[in-house]
C-alpha cells in the first residue's frame, strides 16, 4: 500500500531521539508485506500495540501461519512482557516474606533452573524461570530458527508455559495489588490464559488464576 508509494515510503524505525509517544507509532503493516524473518514477532507486537485489550485479535494468527512458530513467538512475547511483572515483584516480593514459590497452599514449586531443583524464594524463582526460559527459547539447539521449528522443540513450550504461569499465580495470590495494576496495563494474564487454553499448552487444572470471568465459555468460544 504505502510501501508502493516510492516517493514517500514509510520507514518503520525508532530513530534515536524518538519520543516515547512516537515509539513504533507508524501505520500498521500487513503481514503479507512483512518480508523479514521476524515477521511473526512484528505482527504480534503490532497487534498488541494497536490494542492490548483485544486479546482475541492478538492471538489470531495470520492465514497460513505455522502454528509452532506462532506459539513460539507468542511465548517469547509473554516472557518479554513478564519482565515487567518481575520488575514490580523485585520491589515488593521480599525473599524473607515469600521464602517459597507458592500460589495457593497446595503446591510449593521447586526452581528447575538448578542442577537439583531447589526451593528458591519466590523472587528468585521468578527471575530464574524467566532467565531459564530466555535461555531455552533462544537456544541454538532447540530453536535455531525463528522461521521453522521442530516438533520436538515445540513440545518444550508447554513446560515453559507451566513454569511462567506460576509467576502470574504467585503475584495474584500474594501481591494482588501489583498483579491487578499490571494486568490492567497489559492484560497479560488474560492473554496468557487464553493462549494456553487455545493451544492446549497447559491443563486447565493448573490455571488457578480466575482471570477470565467464565473460562469455560471462553474455551468453548475458542474451540468453536
Amino acid at each position, binding site marked *: 500500500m504505502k510501501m508502493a508509494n516510492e516517493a514517500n515510503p514509510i*520507514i*518503520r*524505525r*525508532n*530513530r*534515536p*531521539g*524518538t*519520543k*516515547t509517544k512516537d*515509539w513504533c507509532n507508524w501505520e500498521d*503493516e500487513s503481514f503479507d508485506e512483512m518480508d*523479514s*524473518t*521476524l515477521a511473526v*514477532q*512484528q505482527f504480534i507486537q503490532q497487534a498488541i500495540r494497536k490494542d492490548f485489550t483485544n486479546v482475541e485479535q492478538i492471538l489470531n494468527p495470520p492465514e497460513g501461519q505455522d502454528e509452532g512458530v506462532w506459539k513460539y513467538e507468542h511465548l*517469547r*512475547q509473554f*516472557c*518479554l512482557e513478564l*519482565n*515487567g511483572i*518481575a*520488575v514490580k515483584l*523485585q520491589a515488593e516480593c521480599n*525473599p524473607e516474606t515469600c521464602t517459597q514459590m507458592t500460589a495457593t497452599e497446595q503446591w510449593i514449586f521447586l*526452581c528447575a*533452573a*538448578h542442577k537439583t531443583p531447589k526451593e*528458591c*524464594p519466590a*523472587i*528468585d524463582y521468578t*527471575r*530464574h524461570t*524467566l*532467565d*531459564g526460559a*530466555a*535461555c531455552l*527459547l*533462544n*537456544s*541454538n*539447539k532447540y530453536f*535455531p530458527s525463528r522461521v521453522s521449528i521442530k516438533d520436538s522443540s515445540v513440545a518444550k513450550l508447554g513446560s515453559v508455559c507451566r513454569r511462567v504461569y506460576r509467576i502470574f499465580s504467585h503475584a495474584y495470590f500474594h501481591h494482588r495489588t501489583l498483579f491487578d495494576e499490571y494486568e490492567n496495563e497489559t492484560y497479560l494474564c488474560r492473554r496468557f490464559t487464553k493462549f494456553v487454553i487455545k493451544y492446549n499448552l497447559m491443563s486447565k487444572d493448573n490455571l488457578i488464576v480466575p482471570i477470565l470471568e467464565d473460562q469455560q465459555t471462553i474455551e468453548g468460544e475458542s474451540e468453536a
Partner: protein
Amino acid sequence: MIEDGPGSQHGGQLGPGSGGLGMVTKSQQDDGIKQRPQYSMPGILHFLQTEWARFEMERSQWEVERAELQARIAFLQGERKGQENLKQDLVRRIKMLEFALKQERAKYHKLKYGTDLNPDDLKPPNFDKENKDDQIDGEISISTSSGSSNATWRQGRQLLRQYLQEIGYTDTIIDVRSARVRSLLGLQTQGGDNDADISQSVLVNGEQQLNKRDNQGKRAGLKKLGNMGNETALIDAENAVMTTFDFLNQSNVVEDEDDLSDENEDGMAADDESEERLERKGIKLKNDTNESLAGVDDNDPDTEEALAEFHFLESEMVEGAEKRDSPSGEEEEWVVDQRHISELKEQYKKERKGKKNRPTRHALQAMLATLGGDDDDDDDVSADNNSDRLPSDENRDDDVPAGGNQINYARKPMMGMPDDEENDSGMGLGELAGLTVTNEADPMNYDISAPKEVYRKTWNAKYTLRSHFDGVRALAFHPVEPVLLTASEDHTLKLWNLQKTVPAKKAASLDVEPVYTFRAHIGPVLSLAVSPSGEQCYSGGMDTTIRCWNIPNSSIDPYDSFDPNVLSDTLVAHTDAVWGLSIHSSKNQLLSCSGDGTVRLWSPGNKSPLLNTFTVDSEDGVPTSVDFVRCDPNQMVASYTSSNTYIFDIETGKQVLMLETKLNSDSSGSNQINRVINHPTLPVSITAHEDRHIRFFDNNSGKIIHSMVAHLDSVTSLAIDPNGLYLLSGSHDCSIRLWNLDSKTCVQEITSHRKKFEESIHDVAFHPQKPYIASAGADALAKVFV
C-alpha cells in the same frame, strides 16, 4: 773405550799420509780425537736404533692418540649432525606450521568469499610433505588411498622419512636405516614378488647366510651377543652398521642419490613395497637377534667386533659427509683414516666402543625423545619420558620401535591412517614419520596466533549472544575483561562472559549464555555506558530513567539469588526516553541525551547527581547522541534530529561551536544524525547520518574534513578502536563496516544481523583492550567478532 777406538783408527789412516801436513793433521786429529768417540759405528748404530725405536714408539702413541681423537671427532661430528638435523627438523616444522596457517586462512577466505585465495600462496613448503594438506582437511585416509595428491603425498612422506633417518642416523636408528638401505638394495629384485623375496630371505637368513651383507652384519651381532651377553642392545646397531657399511662400500658416496632416485620413482607400488620391506627388515633384525642369542658362530669375536666398530664409525663419517652439503673432501680423508685406525688399533677401539657407543645412544635417545615430546606438544613430559626411558633402553633391542609404538597409540586414531599404510609398526621410522605428519594437524588450534599480525586482520564472527527477546539497542564492553553488556528493547540488560561459552551446534561460532540479567527498566532499554573501572554501568531507557548498576562479577552463577544492590541508583530528571549516554574516561561524569530535548551532565553517586542541563533552540529538535570531546575534557558534542551538531563547554553549558553538519547534509527530508563520536586523540568529530553518510568534522573550525557514503542504508552507530586507527560503523543495511581512518577506506564488511521492520543494527563497539568487536541487532542478537 769409545775414545780410544776411533782415535787409533784415525791415526792409522792419516798418520802415514804426509809429513808436511803434520801440524795441520795433528790439529785435525786433535779435533778428530775430540769428536771421534761419538761416531763409533756401533755407537751410531745403537743410537740410531734406540732413537728409531723411541720414535716408532712415539709415533705409534701418536697414532693411538690420533685414532682416539679421530674417534672423538667422529662422535662429536655425529652429535653435531644430529643437532643440525634437529634444527632442520624444527625449521621444517615451523614452515609446516606456517603453511597450515595459510591453509586455514585460505579456508576462511573461501568460506567467506567463496573464492580461492591465490593458489600460489598455498603451495606447501616444498621440502616437506604435502600430506599436511590432507591432515589439515582431515582427509588423510582418503587421499592416501586414492586421489590426485597421491604422488606428492608419497614424495613428501619419503622426504620426511629421510630426514628422520638423518636425525637418528647414529646407532639406534641405524638399524632402521640399514633396513631401509637393504630395502633399497632390495629394489634390484624389485618386482611383483618382492615381498616374497624378502620374507624368504628373512627366514633363511639366520642360518644359511644367503645374503652376504646380512651375513656379515649378523655375524657381528652374533659375536657380540655371544661375548657380551647383556649388551644385546648393541646388536641392532651392529647389524645396522654392518649393513650400512657394506652398502656404502658398494655405492660409496652415492647413497643419497640412491635414496632420491628411489623416491623419485614415486609410484604407489614402489613406495608401498619399500615400506613393506622396511617393516620386514625390522622384523628380520629382531629375528637375527633372537637367533644369535643361541650363539652359533665360530668367527673370532674380537675381530668381528672391531670390524663392526670400524663400520660403525665409518658409516657415521660417510653419512655425516653426505648429509651435509659441505664439500666432502675432508670427510673422505677421515674415512680413510678410519680404516687406518681400525687396522692399527682394534683393541683400543674395543675399549672405546663400550664407552663411546653408549653416550651416542643416549644422545640419540634424547634426541628421539625430544622429538617425540615435541610431537606431543609437551616438553616437560618428554623430558620425563626421556629420563625414564634411558636406563631401560640399555637392555632393549627394540627401544626405538617401542618408543614409536608408545606414541603411536595416542596418535594413530588421530591420524586415521589405513592399516595397510601404517602396518610397519615394528619400525620406528614409520611411527616417527607418522608422528611428524600428525603434528601438522595441530596448528589448526592456533589460528589466531602471532603470524596473523603480519597480515591485515580479518574479523570473523566468533560468539553469538542469544538471550534477548527483542532488538538489542546498545552494547558495551568491559574495559578490561572479555565481558560484554547488552541493552535490549525487551526491558533488560544482560551481562555476558565471553569465556563462558556453550559449544554451538555447527562450531562456526560459539554460543554464550548471559551470566546476569538486569531488570529494572519499565520498557525498552535504549542506551548503555560502562564506567572506566568496569565496576558500574549506566543504562537509559524509554521509561525516562537512567539506571546505575553495580556490575556483578562475570563469574557469577547465573541462577544466584536476587541481589537488590546490583541496582545502585536511578537518575531521574529526563522526561522522555533516554537515547544516548557517554561516560568520561577519567572524571566520574555521565552525559545523557533524551527525547525531551535536553542533554544532561551527571555525576553518578553524588547526592545531587545532576550537574548541568544543556538545551538548544526548539528548531533543532531532539538530541540524538552525545559524546565527550576526548581531547578536550571540558567539551562535549551533541547531535540533533535537525542534523545540527554543537560543541558545548561543559562548565558553562554554552555552545562553543556549531559543526557544519547541516550545511553538508542533504537538505531534503529528514537527515538526522544517529550518532556522533569523538576521535580518542584528534580533535575530530565523526557523525553517522540517516542519509547513509559518515562525515568527519574539525572540532576547532567546525569545517567538514571528509564525507563518504558509507552504507547502503542509514548509518546508525559508530565506534573507534582504542588507538584511533579504525572506525566501525553499523547500518540498517544489515552490515557492519570497518574503516581505515587514515585512508577512509572500507577494510572489511560483515553482514551481521537481520531486519526487524526497517531496522537492523543498532550499535557497534570495540573492546578497549582486547581484539573484539561487537554488533547489536534488531534481531535480538548480539555478535562478537575476533
